[in-house]
């Protein structure tokens, strides 16, 4: 019987396992499906990781390396090349690996840290032919950074998510011509620093409020049609531009990978596509916690680590017999807010303060984030700039939470 099983050895799983060990959990195992720890960080060879966590700029593998090093000093077990097939309410984890075969492991607590996957062409139904040369940005990144192969020479990028922006620069540095980055929304989905450092610095045009309306090419991509869209995101006839290219990279959103979570019957939030979690990252299933991109998609790994450390510490506490108690109140998204994490807070279980993470629905200048419970305003926070591409958070001290009754609503006021 393990104190804790961590599903996934990416940044979330690593931080959760380490924090759990620091908080007294003893027998811990990380189950990782890949051949090494680090998850998606291994293919993120650019820098910019760790500014918050380590106060320095690291590459993805360096950032993962810091946590792996911390873990090496502990007795946390790691099982690589191991795929978890299912999790039961009795906290049995069914997994397979070539080395150890089919195993059923039992645990007092479980942390889910499976990360997320990319949306594909099929998910957004881009019309046209179906030639080779259409990649998700992450798959292309794997080929280029880990396998050492180029995926194309003339590239159009759809979506301005961070991986797409990073790949615009990476492909350019490798000698490809990136013709355009096309974003259907009137604002970028990625971090501002990536727009500047990956597009502007290389003179790659960003077409906001545009989308790809057709793909041509029988065997390999030959051409794409890009059109401007109206406020309902419908293409405007007559605004078409043609790009001759052999490659399309898609950076059109990430989806938390919750097949195990769903299979276990854990409650999922339709807004985040992740588990509904309490203040300590516990899911609707007792003793099962979740953290990182499997709960909601983050912009910065530093925040994944922080969230996962909280989840790991809480899982350790649970494993050592400290079940969380108390009535929960719901956290709801009001005007201008698309989701919140956590979705539920057990105020009795909050020690000093509770952080709430969320995203806004559009760009705001000089606005306020307002937290209300019923008609009572609990708190208000001034913000100069809010954007959907940048995750926001506020900290609610317990003294304020104590005034809440029923539910609290987070909204933006202009």
């Amino acid at each position, binding site marked *: 019987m393990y104190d804790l099983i961590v599903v996934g050895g990416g940044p979330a799983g690593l931080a959760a396992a380490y924090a759990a060990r620091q908080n007294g959990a003893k027998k811990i195992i990380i189950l990782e499906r890949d051949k090494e720890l680090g998850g998606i960080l291994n293919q993120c060879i650019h820098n910019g990781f760790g500014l918050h966590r380590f106060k320095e700029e690291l590459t993805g593998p360096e950032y993962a390396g810091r946590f792996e090093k911390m873990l090496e000093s502990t007795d946390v077990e790691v099982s690589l090349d191991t795929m978890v097939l299912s999790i039961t309410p009795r906290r049995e984890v*069914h997994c397979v690996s070539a080395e150890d075969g089919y195993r059923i492991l039992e645990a007092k607590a479980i942390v889910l840290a499976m990360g997320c996957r990319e949306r594909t062409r099929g998910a957004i139904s881009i019309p046209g032919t179906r030639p080779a040369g259409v990649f998700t940005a992450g798959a292309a990144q794997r080929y280029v950074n880990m396998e050492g192969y180029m995926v194309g020479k003339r590239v159009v990028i759809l979506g301005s998510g961070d991986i797409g922006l990073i790949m615009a620069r990476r492909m350019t540095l490798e000698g490809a011509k990136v013709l355009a980055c096309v974003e259907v929304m009137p604002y970028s989905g990625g971090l501002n620093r990536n727009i500047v450092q990956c597009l502007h610095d290389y003179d790659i045009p960003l077409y906001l409020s545009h989308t790809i309306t057709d793909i041509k090419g029988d065997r390999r991509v030959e051409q794409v049609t890009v059109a401007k869209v109206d406020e309902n995101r419908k293409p405007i006839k007559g605004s078409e531009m043609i790009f001759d290219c052999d490659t399309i990279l898609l950076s059109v959103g990430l989806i938390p990978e919750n097949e195990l979570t769903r299979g276990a019957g854990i409650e999922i939030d339709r807004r985040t596509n992740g588990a509904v979690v309490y203040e300590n990252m516990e899911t609707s299933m007792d003793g099962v916690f979740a953290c990182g991109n499997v709960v909601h998609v983050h912009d910065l790994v530093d925040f994944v680590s922080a969230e996962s450390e909280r989840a790991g510490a809480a899982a350790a506490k649970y494993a050592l017999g400290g079940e969380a108690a108390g009535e929960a109140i719901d956290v709801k998204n009001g005007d201008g807010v698309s989701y919140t994490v956590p979705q539920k807070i057990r105020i009795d279980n909050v020690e000093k303060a509770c952080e709430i993470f969320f995203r806004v629905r559009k760009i705001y200048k000089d606005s306020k984030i307002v937290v209300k419970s019923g008609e009572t305003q609990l708190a208000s926070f001034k913000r100069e700039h809010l954007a959907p591409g940048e995750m926001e958070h506020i900290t609610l001290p317990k003294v304020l939470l104590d005034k809440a009754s029923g539910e609290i609503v987070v909204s933006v006021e202009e």
Partner: protein
Amino acid sequence: MVYDVAVIGCGVIGAATAYELSHFKLNVLVLEAENDVADGTTKANSAIIHAGYDPEPNTEMARLNVEGSKLAKDICKKLDVPYKQCGSLVLAFSDDEIPRLKKLYDNGVANGVPDIRVITGDEARKMEPYLSKEVVAALYALSAAIVNPWDYALAMAETAVVNGVEIKLRSKVTAIKKQGDLFEIHTTSGVYTAKLVVNAAGVHAGEIHEMVAAPSFEMHPTSGQYYLMDRSEGGLAGSVIFQCPTKEGKGVLVAPTVHGNLIVGPDAVPCGEDDVKTTADGLDYVARMGKKSVPSVDLRASIRNFAGVRANTNKDDFIIEVVDGVHGFVDAAGIKSPGLSAAPAIAKKICSLLLAEGIEMPFKDNYKGTRKMKRFKQLSDSEKQALIRENPAYGRVICRCETITEGEILDAIRSPITPCSVDGIKRRCNAGMGRCQGGFCGPRVLDILARELGVSPLDILQDKDGTFILTGQTKKAGEGTADV
């Protein structure tokens, strides 16, 4: 070498013909233009084994559909092809449409379709809780089924190969010359000689026909577009849900797939022979019509769009006959829907036509008539354990969405018809079929293929020839410019 029979085309009709012929002591050659079998219409259709009430009574189509559907069930069992008899409903949305249901019912009775009846809208909703409230009546057919169409064709082609049939891939037929009693078939891979020829070239059957005779039919290729939905939507339909058919086709259906997904489509638009593009208008139409039957279909759960081309002709019926004035040359043309359902019966008819052309067909001894696939996901815990113990490659999951192991991918690579592409692997073992559409497993499958086939990763294709995935290597340390 002179072959007894050459079959042109290895879609489901060519595969079924090869499978049927492989039972006899004959030298059989199959010529396929693409780099893999089942790579045309066979891989892009509704995947339905129709009960047989659609075709007009007393047509070849009617007879072959009903007979073919019965044979399909047996073949799928023997060759371990995913098949599920789930029944079908044809919906009437107003009282005006009820006479059309009655007509289909009468067709069905005349065609010998078992277990069909007209039911009320409420009865239909009892069977299918997500059905539209607008449905007033439906035709229910118990014997309709769903199948994995490309695996069905692959299984028959593989069994034919195991039993001695030769398949030549990348062998597009460019000319056919009659030399005395023999046919000299010129292809992109060489010249072959055969006593008898079967034209099973699908949308290209017209071109092949015209290599030996004057035109006797016109091809009217017609595209059909689809949405394939995530398995999360698979529960929205338990049976195949049709709307009343029109002249263009059977209308937009909503159906489960044998993989647990939901399929919605097709439309019907005249197109070029290999025109498998999708269009915004076409997809909109499919979505709208799908929602008419099952309003809760959620397009955000789409994982793939695709289009297939129906091999329609100017004739209503299938064209399965010896070409007029060309002894020994059999056309199997215009095999539109329900061609997948009718395939094994069509193959039997082709064999009887060949027999009548004067060839002897004694049965083979020691026929290997079964196939057994290892599908890790479907095994019990203890069976999984045993399989991994036997071969650890079954313990390494490569495709996360569909839980496909390296062992299954190796089985696919070592199967009787060697795949050369990532999609060839997908068709053989489902790796990359799931919601991430090969985003995770694509690079890993490519790597395994290159390793096992002993070629450079640069040579691995997505699907057909020319669908290269990688364009070159990245810069090496110290290099100034890219070598792409």
